[in-house]
């Protein structure tokens, strides 16, 4: 217990709470001296909550000690190159510079957030099973619905960071990331961000949906500010993590690993990081502008002062559309990574797949306004954005073609990891095919803000992120822990989740086409959707049950799982050529790349070799 209280996590959280209080009291005192209102609905006034939240984040850094080495540098002292981590579980709640520990910290945080966000969904899904309001008020429904969206999004961003942090240095044969301290900071800044975001529950919530459009967000309760601050703070995790991944892949690759001998997942990581590095700043800026509009009356989005709410949507979607490629590109990378292993055939069209990740990321910068066809933006923008959006289907099609061609006439093995890969492909295909109707202006005007959209993006995110994320966990869990996960529980997880999920999203699309609006707490029983909603709610609970089985599997396998010996999956990738769990310094002998990464089944082909005598 003492270890828990003295951990960076707990110290940071205590300091954050104290900093928050001190900051809020400080502003309240100043307001008192200036003769302004000092107390409000939620005790403190809005400026006090916001300033306190800001001080709280800084205090978290001080309390957790994540800035320690940088202070040494600023003082002109040398910081040690490596820090020794404690042996047991304590290293996961303390500041570690090891990319493997940080990757697991990210992944555990992601699982926590996905469970929290999923629970919010279960609550309002239950409410939606019947027309009328049963047990939620409108404000609570809106808050839970909005938080479900944003908590899931941050959970996914954190999970993506986890997969890439753990795997990219291993796949390129590096000892660690290019900037280990920045890597630790990128993780730890997400923690106070999440605390801020969830604190909105206690401060009146917010009713805008996860998009936070003004003018509604300029009027919502104080919880809105906590939403903006929480996302802004966690956003830095994305920005700095992306920076680190780009520098790592450009500078830390093993000898002989030329660009076209990099694993596909590394290509995906670069494409993703280009987006998080740059576009994230625009959502951060748009949120700051609304915060200042609320705090100081600055009229950026206030038409009465010459502002324009459409500007917010442009800035918001400039990030938030490419963000979905941040969610799916690493997942698609995992799919491309695992298929050749379980089919025992070379990956079809390696260069095309590598380039398609970059292609999706770059085209993704040019499509944002397809979210705004019904917003009243300039009409001449509609057709160019429609065509640029449809263009995304081309590089995505390249990926599908390659997967199918790799599977073609292969000897397919189906352990749980591969099941999730195949499930991911099917679900992502549904998500992809339901995309063009939304991208086409004529049909989108009918489908905007209906459950069709909800079904569409749940399919893309589950197929592109959630299924591959589970595949990655089933596949690399033995590498991280030295023990295998239970295959029977894994298969139950898959066969429970997949049909339930398909039922849920296909029904969403169906009632969406028939006119069910999204983001509403109540609907007219005369629409005839009640039976559909009941089935969807049951499906939602079945998915939750399957996730519960998955979590049980994880905790059971960590302690009693079968020991993982040697190259479990018979993979060519370098991380499987060394013992599990991965040694602290990754590769004792440096790597050399001597062949193509995915030449499975070709006699005598070799990918990496260890340079024994240094």
């Amino acid at each position: 217990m003492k270890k828990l209280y003295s951990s960076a996590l707990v110290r940071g959280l205590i300091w954050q709470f104290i900093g928050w209080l001190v900051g809020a009291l400080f502003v309240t005192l100043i307001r008192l001296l200036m003769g302004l209102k000092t107390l409000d609905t939620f005790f403190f006034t809005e400026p006090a909550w916001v300033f306190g939240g800001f001080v709280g984040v800084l205090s978290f850094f001080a309390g957790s000690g994540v800035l320690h080495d940088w202070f040494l540098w600023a003082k002109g002292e040398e910081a040690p190159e490596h820090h020794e981590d404690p042996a047991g579980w304590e290293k996961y709640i303390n500041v570690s510079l090891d990319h493997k520990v940080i990757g697991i910290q990210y992944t555990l945080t992601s699982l926590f957030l996905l469970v929290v966000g999923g629970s919010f969904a279960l609550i309002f899904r239950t409410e939606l099973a019947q027309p009328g309001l049963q047990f939620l008020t409108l404000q609570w429904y809106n808050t839970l619905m909005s938080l479900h969206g944003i908590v899931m999004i941050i959970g996914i961003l954190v999970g993506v960071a986890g997969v890439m942090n753990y795997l990219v240095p291993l796949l390129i044969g590096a000892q660690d990331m290019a900037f280990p301290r920045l890597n630790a900071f990128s993780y730890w800044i997400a923690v106070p961000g999440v605390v801020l975001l969830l604190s909105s529950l206690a401060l009146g919530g917010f009713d805008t949906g996860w998009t936070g459009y003004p003018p509604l967000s300029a009027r919502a309760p104080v919880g809105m500010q906590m939403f903006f601050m929480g996302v802004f703070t966690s956003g830095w995790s994305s920005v700095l993590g992306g920076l680190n991944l780009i520098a790592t892949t450009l500078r830390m690759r093993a000898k002989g690993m030329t660009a076209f001998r990099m694993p596909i997942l590394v290509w995906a990581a670069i494409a993703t990081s280009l987006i998080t590095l740059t576009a994230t700043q625009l959502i951060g800026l748009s949120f700051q502008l609304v915060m200042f509009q609320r705090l100081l009356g600055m009229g950026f989005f206030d038409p009465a002062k010459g502002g324009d709410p459409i500007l917010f949507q442009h800035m918001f979607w400039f990030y938030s559309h490419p963000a979905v490629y941040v969610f799916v590109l690493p997942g698609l990378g995992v799919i491309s990574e695992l298929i050749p292993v379980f089919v025992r055939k070379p990956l079809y069209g390696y260069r095309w797949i590598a380039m398609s990740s970059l292609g999706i990321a770059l085209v993704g910068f040019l499509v944002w306004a397809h979210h705004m066809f019904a917003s009243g933006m300039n009409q001449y923008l509609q057709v160019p954005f429609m065509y640029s959006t449809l263009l995304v289907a081309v590089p995505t099609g390249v990926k599908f073609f390659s997967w199918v061609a790799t599977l073609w006439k292969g000897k397919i093995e189906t352990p749980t990891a591969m099941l999730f890969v195949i499930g991911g492909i099917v679900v992502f295909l549904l998500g992809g095919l339901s995309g063009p109707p939304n991208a086409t202006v004529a049909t989108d005007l009918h489908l905007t803000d209906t459950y069709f959209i909800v079904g569409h993006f749940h399919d893309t995110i589950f197929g592109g992120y959630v299924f591959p994320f589970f595949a990655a966990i089933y596949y690399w869990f033995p590498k991280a822990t030295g023990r295998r996960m239970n295959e029977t529980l894994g298969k139950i997880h898959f066969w429970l989740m997949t049909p339930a999920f398909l039922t849920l999203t296909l029904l969403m699309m169906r009632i969406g086409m028939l006119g069910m609006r999204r983001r509403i707490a109540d609907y007219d029983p005369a629409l005839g959707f009640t039976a559909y909603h009941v089935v969807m709610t049951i499906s939602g609970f079945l998915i939750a049950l399957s996730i519960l089985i998955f979590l049980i599997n994880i905790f059971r396998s960590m302690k009693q799982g079968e020991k993982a010996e040697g190259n479990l999956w018979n993979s060519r990738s370098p991380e499987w050529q060394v013992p599990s769990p991965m040694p602290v310094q990754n590769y004792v002998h440096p790597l050399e790349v001597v062949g193509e990464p995915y030449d499975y089944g070709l006699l005598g082909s070799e990918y990496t070799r260890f340079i024994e005598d240094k």
Partner: protein
Amino acid sequence: MEHNNIADVLRQGIVVFIFLAVLTALEFFVAVAIGAVPLLIVMAVVKVGLVLYYYMHIYRLNEDSGDDHHSLIYKTATNRLGLWLFLLSDSFVFGGLLVARFYLLSLTRPPLNQTLGLIVTSVLLLSSFFMNRAEASMEHGDRKGFVIGIVATLVLGLGFVAGVLGVEWPSAIAEGVTPSVNAAGAIFFMMTGMHALHVVTGLIFLSIVLRNGSRGVYSAEKHWGVEAAAVYWHFVDVVWIFFYPALYLIGRLI
């Protein structure tokens, strides 16, 4: 390191500064007398190009740093890449502000004192000149020249912050440009405020570098801290090279 001797490097810094100063003066003249927007944009781009190449040494990103991942030169090159990636990221914040400014105000501008704008711009430009001298001195092991250069940069940087926050903001408010009066006022305070925040962080870096430098932490071979502070400081100048015409010169008065 650089093969040319220090006198050549310092002379190059002076020539570049003269070009920048002349362009800034021309810019002011073009804006007041002709008001040709494309010409103003071209001049800003040329100025930024000069700063990126001669003061920020962007070409160093391309330098060969060998194969040994543990050598100082390799690590410094990695740090340099990281810093430039951060600047790329940061430029999206400022780019976003510029987009917001032209989206909301198009070719109009708030009633600001153009002479005052020119003065603070000159102060910042001059600080970049001294920053370049400080870095060049350290590269050649001249610690005295380094300290003089950094102190001059710090003083001018403080002068810029005092000029914007202490003189420009009150005078704008006196002209009726307040944060809450309209979108133009909001944009003005957001852009100058965000830029001032970066200037202040730059001043903090400079003070750290000055303290360490005068205590002998850096040498001609090993002075990444100095280079990083210099590149960051010049970046803040680059941002202002775009912000100054966008706020003070381009468009007609509203």
